[in-house]
């Protein structure tokens, strides 16, 4: 009854009972340009309008008193005006750009990202596994990026004149202590972890965040998948072994397990290599990831175990019968992390990892048994004050307990050390506008072993120079302790130190990316010693130093040629250092001047096939010619390799994959080994250090079984 009376009155005296107010104004963007199509309305009512071509809006309302006027438009931050309705006339509203937009500048100095999360991905997730030369190894794919050096016989990452130990690898922000599988001298190693567990990879070749320490040159950050998309079973049959994987999902949790077995015996029986294998390489590994959602939090537990075994005789210039080498390694790694989004923009992350590594190496009559127990614990808090200001801070602890049993006929020793490092870091991300961003951080570390405290400032800055281009600068101080080869003999040292100066230019538009980066890296406090090989009587000092400087170029184009995606990387490197037992500053044998990679992928729709191509060139690396005066004074000839692969989709879930590394069988020489003593003419004899095999062939069949019949293992290849 009440309602109809009111309706009646409204019909007769609308203007008397409810004074209609008019809300009007103009919407402009931050440059003063009118915004067309902005949504302007009184919150909680139905009253509102859309701005016209000149940014003007006007609407009537029967609301009175204090109201909230909301103005929203895509890619701008929503704006609210709280005021008395009578004052909402001829408003002039300037919208603030949403810095969460793709157009916002990103700090790109030093780092390459792969994955969907990053705004500008240099590599896409699939590239990690479809790069012809990589053979499914994520490290192999990263070696086609600029800033890396081709050290074909090693397989690890050598970044900007740094040795392999200067790059640290993190899974979900937690350190991996033993990331690579052990191999024989002339066989490149691979990353231990299968690429398909990760959905985001960031590879930084310098100037990285204060969150990461104990790395002089580079960090590689791998993030495991938060939530697998579906239940499935993967079966792999390969010319070198087999694999089985399964993912199971429940309402709030999921489990992925993966097992693989590799045995090179049949391959070597058909295609013998330069080694004389008594027991060809054999490895069995298992991995599991468990994820559980707890309220707004996510718990991830990752575990990996692998065991490798091989025995061979390798050619040696000083031993006509060759050197006998045998290795048995067991490695267990587990990593657990928990993250939760709390109230008021806070995020908490806590995690830890534990590594157990046991390696037994036999070299001729000598036996070395290493046992390493390492752990890393980290607690991090993040506060998001606004889209424009975020603060990160945290603490972490590294613990390493290393023991070695050294035993050969005329010498035996027990070596070992405990290395505990405590660290704290804080970092602020400030976005001033879509054009200008700054990251500023500090890291402090205390080493219990050295009784030493270090402080590293890190700063990077990015400025947008045009619609598609930007300039970034970065500076940082980085400290790292020497590795177990040194620490097992002495603790009377200090951390090694580098400073990075980086300038980066990036252009990205229409599926094309161009990056150019110049850098200078200054090394100080490098560890030196006075013997050919360190032992318990060796004197160690921190008086080494050096530098690395160069230019890295990257170009990727997915647009110009139909169905062809390619990238080209070039690195110029100038580096010298005095470390280990170097008599003076010299270019180490793992560094060279020019590196070039060309990677192409061609999709042939009619054949349902992807053909991959990659070419790698590395200019000659240094070695010491004992028949001439000098140290590391000569260079090998350049390295060349062309690899091809072919992935054929038999059906949606069955893939046949074939690949050949070094198709043209270029004979690459990695260096030379000289005899310990000269021959009767006073000449030191030498032999070439050759890869175990010039070429590698691989055939695999991959079958996925899932409910929807769609998924396949292309991303495992």
């Amino acid at each position: 009854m009440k309602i109809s009376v009111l309706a009646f009155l409204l019909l007769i005296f609308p203007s008397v009972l409810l004074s209609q107010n008019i809300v009007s104004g103009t919407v402009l963007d931050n440059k003063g340009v009118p915004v067309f199509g902005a949504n302007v309305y009184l919150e909680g009512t139905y009253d509102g309008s859309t701005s016209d071509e000149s940014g003007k809006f006007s609407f009537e309302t029967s609301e009175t008193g204090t109201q909230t006027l909301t103005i929203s438009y895509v890619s701008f931050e929503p704006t609210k005006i709280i005021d008395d309705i009578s004052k909402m006339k001829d408003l002039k509203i300037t919208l603030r750009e949403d810095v969460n937009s793709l157009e916002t500048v990103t700090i790109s100095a030093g780092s390459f990202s792969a994955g969907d999360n990053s705004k500008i991905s240099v590599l896409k997730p699939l590239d990690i596994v479809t790069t012809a030369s990589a053979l499914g190894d994520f490290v192999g794919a990263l070696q086609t990026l600029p800033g890396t050096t081709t050290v074909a016989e090693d397989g690890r990452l050598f970044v900007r004149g740094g040795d392999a130990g200067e790059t640290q690898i993190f899974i979900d922000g937690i350190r991996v202590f033993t990331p690579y599988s052990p191999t024989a001298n002339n066989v490149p190693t691979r990353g231990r972890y299968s690429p398909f567990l990760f959905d985001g990879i960031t590879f930084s070749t310098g100037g990285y965040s204060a969150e990461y320490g104990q790395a002089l040159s580079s960090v590689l950050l791998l993030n495991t998948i938060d939530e697998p998309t579906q239940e499935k079973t993967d079966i792999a049959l390969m010319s070198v072994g087999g694999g089985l994987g399964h993912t199971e999902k429940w309402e709030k949790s999921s489990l992925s397990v993966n097992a693989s077995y590799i045995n090179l015996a049949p391959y070597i029986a058909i295609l013998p290599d330069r080694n004389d294998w008594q027991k060809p390489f054999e490895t069995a590994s298992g991995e599991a990831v468990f994820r559980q959602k707890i309220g707004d939090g996510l718990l991830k537990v990752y575990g990996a175990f692998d065991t490798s075994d091989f025995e061979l005789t390798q050619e040696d210039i000083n031993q006509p019968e060759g050197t006998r080498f045998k290795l048995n390694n067991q490695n267990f790694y587990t990593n657990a992390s928990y993250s939760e989004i709390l109230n008021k923009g806070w995020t908490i992350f806590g995690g830890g990892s534990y590594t157990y590594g046991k390696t037994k190496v036999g070299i001729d009559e000598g036996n070395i048994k290493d046992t390493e127990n390492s752990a890393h614990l980290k607690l991090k808090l993040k506060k998001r004050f606004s889209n424009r200001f975020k603060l990160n801070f945290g603490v972490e602890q590294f613990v390493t307990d290393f023991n070695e049993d050294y035993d050969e006929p005329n010498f035996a020793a027990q070596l070992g050390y405990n290395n505990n490092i405590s660290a704290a870091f804080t970092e602020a991300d400030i976005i001033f506008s879509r054009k200008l961003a700054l990251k500023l951080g500090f890291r402090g570390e205390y080493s219990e072993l050295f009784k030493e405290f270090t402080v590293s400032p890190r700063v990077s800055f990015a400025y947008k120079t045009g619609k598609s281009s930007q300039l970034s600068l970065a500076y940082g101080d980085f400290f790292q302790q020497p590795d177990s080869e040194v620490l097992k003999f002495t603790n009377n040292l200090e951390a090694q130190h580098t400073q990075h100066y980086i300038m980066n230019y990036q252009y990205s538009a229409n599926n094309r990316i161009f990056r150019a980066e110049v850098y200078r890296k200054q090394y100080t406090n490098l560890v030196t010693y006075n013997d050919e090989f360190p032992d318990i009587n060796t004197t160690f000092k921190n008086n080494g130093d050096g530098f690395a400087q160069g230019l890295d170029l990257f170009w990727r184009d997915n647009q110009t040629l139909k169905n062809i995606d390619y990238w080209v990387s070039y690195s110029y490197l100038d580096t010298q250092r005095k470390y280990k037992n170097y008599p003076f500053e010299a270019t180490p044998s793992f560094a060279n001047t020019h590196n070039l990679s060309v990677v192409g992928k061609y999709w042939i729709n009619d054949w349902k096939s992807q053909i991959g191509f990659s070419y790698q060139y590395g200019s000659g690396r240094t070695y010491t010619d004992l028949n001439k005066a000098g140290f590391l004074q000569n260079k090998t000839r350049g390295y060349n390799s062309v690899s091809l692969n072919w992935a054929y989709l038999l059906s949606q879930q069955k893939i046949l994959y074939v690949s050949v590394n070094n198709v043209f069988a270029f004979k690459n020489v990695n260096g030379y080994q000289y005899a310990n003593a000269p021959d009767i003419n006073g000449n030191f004899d030498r032999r070439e250090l050759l890869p175990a095999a010039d070429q590698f062939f691989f055939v695999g069949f991959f079958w996925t079984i899932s409910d929807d019949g769609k998924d396949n293992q292309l991303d495992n290849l």
Partner: protein
Amino acid sequence: MQNVVTYLMIFFTALIMQGQTDSEVNTTAQPTKYQQGMRKAFQLWQENKSWEAANVFERIAAAEPDNWLPPYYVAQINVINSFTEKDGTKLKAQLDKAQDFINDATAISKENPDLLVLQAQLYTAWIVYDGQQYGMTYSPKASELYSKALALAPDNPRIILAKAEWDMGGAKYFGQSIEPYCKDIQRAIELFATFKPAGEFYPTYGEERAKQIQAESCI
């Protein structure tokens, strides 16, 4: 493979919401503000003023915090308009907006098959934009969402259609039989005949599309 996915996804660009049928309205009763607003929005949409329609839905969403339909339609307009958007910056802004509104709608109505299908279509928009970059990640996610939606509403013709159309694209590419999906589409058409939306302004599209696919692929 990415290109395969792109290829598949092209089928879906054609997925235009077939006019939200005017809901049977009791014309004698005085329409509520909500009804007036929703009708105005649908009218603007039919006049091809989809952005203005989205603005009206957004206003209603702000005024009706317990109703999942207004945010659903805001998201749907942003998703549909993204299928033809070539500018990556705009696309991301639109799909981010759509995602926000899907999240709002999902908070109101959980386990809602229409929202799951819309989420799958949002992923599809990314795949159509750049199959190479997004195909591998979003394609299985979309598949999973369609399966989940169908499990929740096994007799909803729109959900049957959406899943069948998605699966059909893949089967065609690999030269596999599309017959099972044709059966699904036939079943969807039969169900559309008697389909009653759960309430006023609930989504009702799909029947025309089902007949179109049947005519193109199944006969």
